């Protein structure tokens, strides 16, 4: 996993509430056995019209992800299906941060494991950010601080996930290191059974 420490980038706005993971990546693309290369499928049906042609009037078709890596979205972002293809697609599209007032639990968990930072901010800050497309925002994970053009707020990332992100390590290693504790639990289970 690519470490995430601090990012300054411009914002892209999708103000709709309840953007579910079927919007982020439609189910018909889930027959893949890979996790790479899904950026082209991100928001596929929003970005493309009949016969798959890109819609000229969709904001995501005019994003330069070299400069715009922060997605600011309406409340309850990432609700619905548990598909990890959603953060995979967003990352491959070029986003590194999603900001909302409210981000769904499973999406948050999946995003954190892939280096996509889900930032939940208070409703008033959220409203200000939604109003300013292209705003340059700095997200500092070490200090859990968001700042942009006079806007400033603290956010919270679960501490262990934050450590993993800062170090760029996959939590699987930490779980594997607990093998003895897991074995003890299983032995107690077998004893209880007999």
């Amino acid at each position, binding site marked *: 996993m690519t470490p995430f420490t601090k990012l300054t980038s411009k914002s892209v706005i999708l103000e*709709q509430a309840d953007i579910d993971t079927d919007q982020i990546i439609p189910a018909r693309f889930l027959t893949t056995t890979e996790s790479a290369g899904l950026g082209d499928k991100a928001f596929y049906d929003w970005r493309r019209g009949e016969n798959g042609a890109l819609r000229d009037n969709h904001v995501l078709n005019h994003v330069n992800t070299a400069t715009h890596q922060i997605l600011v979205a309406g409340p*309850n972002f990432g609700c*619905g299906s*548990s598909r990890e293809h959603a953060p995979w697609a967003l990352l491959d599209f070029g986003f590194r941060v999603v900001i909302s007032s409210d981000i769904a639990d499973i999406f948050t968990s999946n995003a954190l494991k892939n280096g996509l930072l889900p930032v939940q901010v208070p409703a008033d800050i959220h409203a200000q950010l939604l109003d300013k497309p292209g705003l340059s925002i700095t997200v500092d994970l070490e200090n859990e601080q968001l700042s942009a053009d006079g806007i400033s707020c603290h956010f919270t990332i679960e501490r262990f996930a934050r450590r993993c992100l800062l170090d760029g390590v996959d939590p699987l290693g930490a779980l594997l290191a607990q093998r003895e504790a897991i074995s003890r639990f299983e032995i107690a289970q077998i004893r209880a059974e007999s």
Partner: protein
Amino acid sequence: MTPEASRWLTAMGNDMTDTPQTLYDKLWDAHLVAPEGKDSPAILYIDLHLVHEVTSPQAFTVLKERGLDVRRPDLTKATLDHSVPTLPANKDGSLPYATEDAATQVAALQDHCADYGIELFGLGDHRRGIVHVIGPELGLTQPGKTIVCGDSHTSTHGAFGALAFGIGTTEVGHVLATQCLFQRKAKTMRVRFTGALQPGVSAKDMALAMIAHVGADGGQGHAMEFAGPAVEALDMEGRMTLCNMSIEAGARVGLVAPDETTFAFLEGRERAPKTKDWADAVSQWKQLHSDDDAHFDQEIEIDASTITPMITYGVSPDAAAAINGQHPALANDNAREAADYMQLQAGQDFDAVRVDRVFIGSCTNARLTDLRAAANILRGRKVADHVAMLVAPGSEAIKAEAEAEGLHSIFIAAGAEWREPGCSMCIAMNGDKGQPGELVVSTSNRNFKGRQGKDVRTMLASPATAAACAVNGYLADPRQFAGQFADSDQTEESSAA
């Protein structure tokens, strides 16, 4: 004694404070390999890991890359449901997959199961079916277990008093390799359904009413326990429907405390405890309930007797209302955009909305009682000429039972298609889908834009309501079919049997 039950007792024994606990607290404590701290989440042991073809291949790839084994193949069970066709096999015996990728994905799970010694309820197995249907059906799902699956509707299994939740593919890899997950404890919410359901109103209507009440994110961060007389009165199928839909309110977990209804459902099932183990298990399971004075972070009460058959009208499951009413006013931009997509207007009578297609199926509503409820409406009637109707049973076992009862003949005689088991049009990734612009009344769980096919307009409802809509050709309250609900659901079931 089952290991889950005895772990719970041990956990209780260690808790000398006598603090009243919720059912969620008890399940949580009994599965702690390591407790949570400020800097580290808890390590939670998983008793049952269900695997399907869509969210597992990348997890197996990680295992292979890192040279890891599956720690407990015996606690890992797999099936094929999402990508598989519901159309019968071709003449040469091959299946009519929607895409080559779908066939590849199915083959990948077959290979992984063979490589790692994981039991697969696969093609041709009479135990195959939708993952959340077969777990309970086989008796793999039991009170007191922790159950995970790379699928958000894993909450379904909470109907048995199991701690069950959906996970992503990275976590599927974690459970394969370690049988454990890092987890933070959720907050708790109790939803009490008081009173009794009216005839013709089902668990699906309760679920939609609950989601409309709390909102699509109302359960976020919470384990949601359903309680009260109307929940206790539900059969297991109804409780599964309710817990299944808890994720549509954003909840992490749905739960119902196990009781005699639970035990009666499980007794004698293939993988349920047998003989003396069964008696021990039941006596332990009986202790899995929230204590009288247990504290919940949130409490909600809904009077079940006021619930009428529901329909969703928007593109989020919380946009739900009584089907015998009107489309509500458009409160904001989101509501206006949803109404635009759905081609519906504020104040419009629902019974004037024309239906193009009806789907009966999914992990929410494809069990035998669901099929009976739909068949009761369709018996002796025809699906409207302009409506296409598809019925996909939840499992091979349900298909066989339904056919033994003659339900399939009722569906076919009415003009519906009777398909093979699978997720089918719920997720529409196997080729079963609506056409652009079509209005589909569906017994599934999500009315998201494009969920059932590009530009398809989905309205969620109970099996009885969906069948009534198929017959009328317009949205319809199932209670208008006189005689179907004159008595209790019990009578309705026995008359169908």
